[in-house]
């Protein structure tokens, strides 16, 4: 297997979900390389060695400065063809989904998305894809090569193994249409604490909080646990909390080590965004809430009483 992992970066940092996919690729074996695309990004490449890349390909061009997918399709198509790469893996993101799909069309290569695991079975690469609201796990494979896969963000943890990567520059030509779209503005949302994709701990709030002001309870618990705050679609739609924190079918998919759901009923559209979390704790006053069917610890009770006490206990423990 000759595997290439797309190493997405943001503000001078290789992204954790991509490094997690790289660690997984190293575990699966074969020749593992990473690829860094951008402008002024050569210095980012060597760091990938520690996560299992023997080689990191770099294309450093001004046209690659902004995170737009189509110029990157040109880059990866050239690299895959030249280097005889048979497998290209992406940690799912807004950028990588469009990149992977464009590359799929360009190379006539199969793309499986939303994978929650990758395994080798009898020498074949198999993706595990939760489908239909995660009620069924589909084993997906590929006809021919190269094989392309988008992995759910946060599925694999980056594992530092301490290797060194050889860095190699490569060149390619842009298609005219690939440079058609231009980034006019990038406004970065200021956020305190970790983003929900990167967080090991997430505390999420839903309608059961009662009022937007009660998100303070969720925020305080998240802060005590060193985690991030997430929200359901219902409260985002109601304007209680920003869309960037929305977990679920039309929001983000997360899989932290700990997910604490406060006043969340556990509707299917929320469930698909968080059910691969490590430990799920749910606090809800309705004993029949669907979330009690798929959490690890379910607490039937009044979150307005439980959450502040819990926050206090966590603070005591950590101090």
């Amino acid at each position: 297997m000759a595997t290439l992992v797309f190493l997405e970066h943001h503000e001078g940092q290789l992204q954790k979900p991509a490094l997690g996919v790289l660690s997984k690729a190293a575990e699966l074996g074969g020749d593992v390389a990473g690829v860094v695309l951008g402008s002024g990004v050569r210095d980012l490449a060597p760091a990938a060695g520690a996560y299992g890349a023997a080689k990191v390909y770099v294309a450093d061009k001004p046209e690659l400065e902004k995170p737009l997918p189509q110029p990157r399709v040109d880059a990866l198509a050239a690299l895959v063809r030249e280097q005889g790469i048979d497998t290209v893996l992406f940690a799912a993101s807004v950028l990588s989904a469009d990149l992977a799909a464009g590359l799929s069309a360009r190379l006539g290569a199969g793309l499986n998305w939303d994978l929650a695991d990758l395994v080798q079975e009898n020498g074949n690469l198999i993706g595990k894809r939760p489908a239909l609201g995660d009620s069924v796990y589909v084993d997906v494979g590929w006809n021919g090569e190269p094989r392309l896969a988008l992995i759910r963000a946060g599925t694999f943890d980056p594992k530092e193994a301490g290797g060194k990567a050889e860095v190699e520059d490569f060149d390619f030509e842009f298609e005219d249409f690939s440079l058609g779209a231009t980034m006019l503005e990038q406004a970065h949302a200021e956020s305190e604490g970790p983003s929900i994709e990167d967080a090991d701990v997430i505390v999420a709030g839903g309608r059961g909080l009662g009022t937007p002001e009660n998100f303070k309870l969720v925020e305080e618990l998240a802060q005590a646990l060193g985690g991030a705050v997430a929200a359901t679609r219902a409260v985002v739609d109601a304007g209680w909390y920003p869309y960037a924190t929305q977990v679920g079918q039309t929001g983000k998919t997360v899989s932290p080590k700990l997910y604490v759901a406060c006043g969340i009923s556990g509707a299917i559209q929320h469930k698909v965004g968080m059910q691969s979390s490590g430990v799920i704790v749910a606090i809800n006053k309705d004993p029949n809430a669907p979330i009690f069917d798929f959490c690890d610890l379910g607490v039937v009770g009044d979150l307005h009483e439980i959450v502040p006490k819990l926050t206090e206990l966590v603070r005591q423990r950590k101090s």
Partner: protein
Amino acid sequence: MKIAVCVKHVPEGTTHARINPQTKRLDRSGEGAINPFDTHAVEEALRIKEAQGGEVLVVSMGPQSAQDSVRKALAMGADGALLVTDDAAAGSDLVATAAALAAALEPESTDLILFGQQASDSDGAVLWAAVADRLRRPVISQVAELTVADGKVTGKRQTEFGYDTIEAPLPAVVAVSDAINEPRYPSLKGIMGARSKPQRSVSVSELGIDAGEVGDAGSRTVVQALNDPPPRGDTVKIEDDGSAPEKIIEYLAEKKVL
């Protein structure tokens, strides 16, 4: 301004959807409906047309029953429809679907091609980028605010890191998020008028592509097995008697997540 909107016919509601264990394909024999995410793309196309004039063409690929979804878009106000329908195309994956859709869209000389943000049945959120590459057009996805003016399209969108504003020259491909608008309900007049609007059906061979490029033969991914989701383990459920915070702490300590 000629706008094409790509819509998918999906099984109604995800709760009753099932995968046929024999064919390993989604069972499409039950009631179907237009993919809810695509109605936002139809709505956006209609708003552009109402503001600037032009024509909205609904494009779909699927079984004959997909006519129902096409007709829904016509009832909302689209002007005409094109359905790619062929038994040979059943089971098409991304590569195969993009090949067929691009072949259907190519001769239509559209200024703008719109998609909804994902398919509710397959959770796919990738088709636009593959079609754009086939048609050699710029693409903007996840657009929550769209402006079309002076031969250009400008989209604002939200990403993991903040907000992007991206501009592209027409002709372009745009995927809109469901935050972009509130789709209208078809009026009675719209529903009555839908039947008399021009609707074309084309087979794969009429698109001038080989049957080997679509369906199972043209697909580069394969479904190998269906399994139950991995078990989560048993749920511990407690009623709060005042000691719940302590019990939660104990549980988290035991699971080593504190």
